[in-house]
């Protein structure tokens, strides 16, 4: 149990290849922090620096109050679950889980007790004598978790642990991991490229892109108040609509519609963003409206997605499935002003 601090951390391989740039995050004790971003954004490197598997070029990483820059991986007292699970193929499930305890020179009876306890939690009691080869993907994943749990570590690191599971198992394991976090009361740091995992599991999310931390915050906060264009586009499916606008008298003017801005901004050009669900078929008198030419309709039962254009801009809308609309129709939709965002067209930072 411990907090983790990244203090101006940089990872540079060569003078022109920097994969993590000035990374600053404080992760509280017992927090579930998710590092999310597209592949190659530096999130795994950030995690591996904390684990001691990569050196830290600049800055400090602290576990609790202890600076770990020059502490060997084996002495950091953290547990890590690898994407490939990295189970020792020549050892039984029991020995795989016992290995970190043997490294701590724990007594045989204590090892036995802890492994049995972990295998009980994870439902592995009947597989303790098997080799990893004889297990299914989901079971292997649980052994990897077990190997981490038995140690009762200060920090629990998970590097894309669900990406080798099929969709159904991934959903189940997601829930189990959250339960596990609650039961273990340990700091979890979880790396993923999957924004659904990030949104559903994290107490807080740190979004990275191209080695730079974009925004840190609770899932709802990031969803509702993205700090910049990248975060706005990365979180949410289908992605947010982005429309270039010019400002006139407190109005944002797009190619096919106008929107009254809730407060004045000091820019005459920008990018207007609104999520598909900010569009609705119920039009309020005082609200903004826009007309889209519908090209594709997707009915999902619970939702209905309309893909079309307003003026020259492509628009996606998520509307009530009972709305009657067909490809080729022109549909007038209401725009909920609480759900609009405005970004600077140069810096891409949020203006509202």
């Amino acid at each position, binding site marked *: 149990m411990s907090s983790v601090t990244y203090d101006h951390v940089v990872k540079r391989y060569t003078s022109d290849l920097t994969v993590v740039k000035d990374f600053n995050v404080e992760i509280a004790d017992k927090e579930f922090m998710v590092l999310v971003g597209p592949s190659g954004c530096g999130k795994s490197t950030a995690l591996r620096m904390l684990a001691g598997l990569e050196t830290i070029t600049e800055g400090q990483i602290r576990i609790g109050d202890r600076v770990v820059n020059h502490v060997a991986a084996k002495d950091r007292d953290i547990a*890590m679950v690898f994407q*490939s699970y*990295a189970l*020792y193929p*020549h050892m039984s499930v029991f020995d795989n889980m016992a290995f970190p305890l043997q490294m701590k020179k724990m007594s045989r009876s204590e090892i036995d007790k802890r492994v049995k306890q972990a295998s009980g939690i994870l439902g592995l009691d009947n597989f303790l004598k098997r080799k990893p080869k004889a297990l299914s993907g989901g079971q292997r994943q649980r052994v990897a978790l077990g190997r981490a749990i038995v140690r009762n570590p200060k920090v629990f690191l998970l590097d894309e642990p669900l990406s080798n599971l099929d969709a159904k198992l991934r959903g189940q394991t997601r829930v189990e991991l959250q339960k596990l976090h609650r039961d273990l009361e340990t700091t979890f740091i979880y790396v993923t490229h999957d924004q659904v995992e990030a949104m559903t599991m994290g107490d807080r999310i740190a979004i990275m892109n191209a080695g730079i931390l974009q925004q840190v915050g609770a899932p709802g906060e990031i969803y509702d108040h993205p700090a910049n264009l990248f975060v706005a586009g990365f979180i949410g499916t289908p992605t947010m609509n982005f429309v270039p606008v010019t400002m006139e008298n407190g109005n944002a003017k797009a190619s096919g519609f106008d929107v009254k801005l809730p407060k004045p901004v000091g820019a005459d050009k920008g990018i207007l963003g609104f999520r598909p669900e900010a569009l609705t078929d119920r039009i309020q008198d005082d609200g903004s409206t826009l007309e889209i030419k519908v090209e594709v309709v997707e009915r999902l039962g619970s939702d209905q997605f309309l893909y079309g254009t307003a003026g020259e801009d492509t628009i996606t809308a998520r509307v009530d499935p009972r709305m009657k609309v067909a490809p080729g129709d022109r549909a007038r939709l209401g725009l909920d002003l609480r759900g609009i965002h405005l970004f600077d067209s140069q810096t891409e930072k949020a203006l509202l």
Partner: protein
Amino acid sequence: MDLSLLLTDVPTLVVVIVGVPAVLGAYILGGEFLVRRLPDRARGSVRPWIWVAPALFFVTAFLVAPAIGTVFTSFQSHGGDWIGLTNYQRQLVDFPNGGAWIAIRNNLYWLVLYTLFVLFFGLLLAVLFDRVPYESVVKSLIFMPMAISAVALGVIWKFMFWYQPADAPQTGTLNAIVVNVFHQAPKTWLTDPNVNNFALIAAAIWGITGFSMVILSAALKGIPADLLEAARVDGAGEITIFRRVIFPLMMPTVVVVGTTLVIFALKAFDIVYVMTAGNFGTDVLANRMYKLLYQADNPGGASAVAIILLLAVIPVLIFNLRQFRAVEARR
């Protein structure tokens, strides 16, 4: 160069270049033609034999048949009379210093020292070079002796071990070091029965370490980096990681390389032949067999030695094949 000699060989050359592929082609096409005539059910079981038959023929004609012939010869006198086990008796009766016993003792030295040291050095180099920059360059250097023929290797080391009397300049590398660095009397490396066997084995080890290193290095690279990282995070030091993770995972390969080396050790001939010709107590079975056959004109004795060697190799061979199959099955 006398071109006329070459010209007289032209017909042979034509037969070889045109004839051999033609015969092979005709065999394959003809075999396939005949297989097509067979009923559907028989085809699957006949076709493999068509393809395997040439190899079977060559192995039988050039390996199995001579081996059986050797067994017969080992029970016969020079004149071709059946004399039972007399040839074996002559080789084995004078324990511990007569007949084949010196060679058997030396083969045991080879078996143990050569195998263990080559495995040890191969493993050590594979693990160490895995962590250095320019790995491929260093590994190529260690592997280089493999490109030298065993005879050339023997000649090189004969010079390395060369002896000159104490008052003469030492042209052998080792004695130059002994005399000039350690200020000792030069040693007769290849004639002193206390050291010469080890000198020969050392030369052979130098020649083959690259082989063991390259194969073990490939096995080492086959271990996923994740596993080592996981072990590090689990709190294991580098030596523990080697002992508990790397070595167990390399074990099947170590066993295959080890048994191959045992067979090499039992077959040792060329280095001994070139460097000491088996004199001064350095004889090995293969060299003894050669001497008995070509120098002593004793085919019965030579065949007996050959059979003794064959019997020693067979169990290792079987074990090696089984192990190899086990490694393949694990893939």
